[in-house]
């Protein structure tokens, strides 16, 4: 039997991310944690969720957990496979994607993400992998989620380089760029959830059970505010953990 009081930070993040997904959502997804969150949502409250992989795969039925976004198990038995240009245009740019998942080395106070470089672009201190599809996902998916461990170095007040757009410097700045999507809707961490306020600033809207606001503040690089309606998240349920551990990632690759 699964012990629901004893869960790992990764499991906590997956469960809370899954709960944000809505039935019928079309999700642009990568491998790893977002993939687990989608599959968990499909097996619980969102049976009609549809997954699209950046590699051009729609409606995959993988028989194993893929290491990379382009694994052959995503293709065999999928509903549709198309080229990279097609997946970015017909699906993402055209507006057929409800949800995008994002990640990066740095996420700032306004949800902008750096996945490119630490230090100066021309003389990089640490050269990161770069945008991949995240520049477009952040701009064109109807809404975005970020799942990441809560560490001060990951949450600076400003990112060194804006690889993909959150709310820029806040206010109407995002809207004025003319991008089609609504931007980051939540950052799910192992401590709680941050969501943009009306000004586009990420504030704490939920704490996980047993976590204090001070603990989150200490791990955030800006003067984090707390929502007046800040809640405590419901702990992972036994059934959620069972699905995760027994069905989705029995080899414990990502959790």
């Amino acid at each position, binding site marked *: 039997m699964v012990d629901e009081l004893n869960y790992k930070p990764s499991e906590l993040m997956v469960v809370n991310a899954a709960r944000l997904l809505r039935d019928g959502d079309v999700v642009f997804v990568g491998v790893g944690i977002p993939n687990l969150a989608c599959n968990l949502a499909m097996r619980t409250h969102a049976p009609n969720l549809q997954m699209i992989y950046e590699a051009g795969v729609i409606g995959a039925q993988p028989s194993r957990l893929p*290491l990379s*976004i382009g694994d052959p198990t995503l293709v065999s038995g999928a509903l549709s496979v198309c080229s990279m240009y097609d997946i970015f245009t017909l699906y993402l*740019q055209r507006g057929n994607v409800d949800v995008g998942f994002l990640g990066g080395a740095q996420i700032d106070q306004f949800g902008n993400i750096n996945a490119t470089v630490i230090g100066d*672009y021309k003389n990089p201190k640490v050269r990161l992998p770069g*945008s991949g599809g995240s520049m477009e996902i952040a*701009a064109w998916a109807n809404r975005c989620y970020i799942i990441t461990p809560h560490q001060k170095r990951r949450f600076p007040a400003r990112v060194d380089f*804006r*690889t993909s757009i959150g709310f820029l410097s806040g206010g109407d700045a995002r809207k004025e760029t*003319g991008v089609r999507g609504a931007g980051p809707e939540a950052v799910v961490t192992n401590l709680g959830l941050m969501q943009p306020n009306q000004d586009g600033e990420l504030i704490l809207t939920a704490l996980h059970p047993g976590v204090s606001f001070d603990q989150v503040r200490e791990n955030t690089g800006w003067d984090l505010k707390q929502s007046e309606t800040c809640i405590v998240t419901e702990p992972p349920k036994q059934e959620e953990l069972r699905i995760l551990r027994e069905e989705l990632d029995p080899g414990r690759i990502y959790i």
Partner: protein
Amino acid sequence: MTKQMSLKDAIREYVHDGDTLYASGFTHLIPFAAGHEIIRQGIKDLVLARATPDLIYDQMVAAGCARKVVFSYMGNPGVGSLRRVRAAIEVGTLEWEEYSHFSMISRLQAGANGLPFMPMKATGATDLADQNPNYQKVNDPYTGEAVVVVPPLKPDVAVVHVQRADAEGNAHVWGILGEQRLAAFASTRVILTAEEIVDQSVIRSDPNRTLIPGLIVDAVCHVPFCAHPSYTQGYHDRDNKFYLEWDQISKTEERVGEYLCEWVYDVPDRAAYWEKLGPDVHERLAAGARLSEPVNYGDY
């Protein structure tokens, strides 16, 4: 008219020092055998363009083939950093030109389609465009708004791996398609490597599956297992174990040098490389059978 030749001859004839090369394949169908042959032939000063440089360009950069990389995601997919390319960039010995995935592929689309540029919807993220003068703007005549555009990418030579082709280069491709077709049409010269060379009647039985026509192909090379450690859908699996191992190997130049000696320089061709991998690897990567339902084209 057959265009079949050995991969060695094809690389010698169609890849020259200083060329812009596009060895295509998004995770799938990456033509490692061609990369290794280019390393063996000591070709220099290449501009290596790929959305995801992957291990193939990490190895070619380490071997000293490259002057510059053009890319949109420089990682070891699902593993982490692409250490040799990253190190060369960090120490300043390798030029680079960077895009997002979509702007990189839009450049290929413009190149393949013969367009002067490709427009894109606004992304609001301008830091990369500020660093790369190839990002430009035009005025949308319908709305008056500024629209970001990128210029065509027209590599000198593309290497494209496919599942099956006839000797003239008409090729069936399935599974993840990535930028296979665009790379071929965008490039001046095209080297096709094929898992199988089949009779033209097989190709003609399913013309909608022919994504690359022989008329744009210069060389057809029969190279089974060309893509390892990447994969060929329906022929062998991705060697995830090796992708994880490379993360260790690539930590030092010494270990990379040893790897290149053992698996590239001291190996004459892909057949010997595959043989050297041994039966355990062959078995681990076997694909199994899962066939498509046929369709009827009709006898008209």
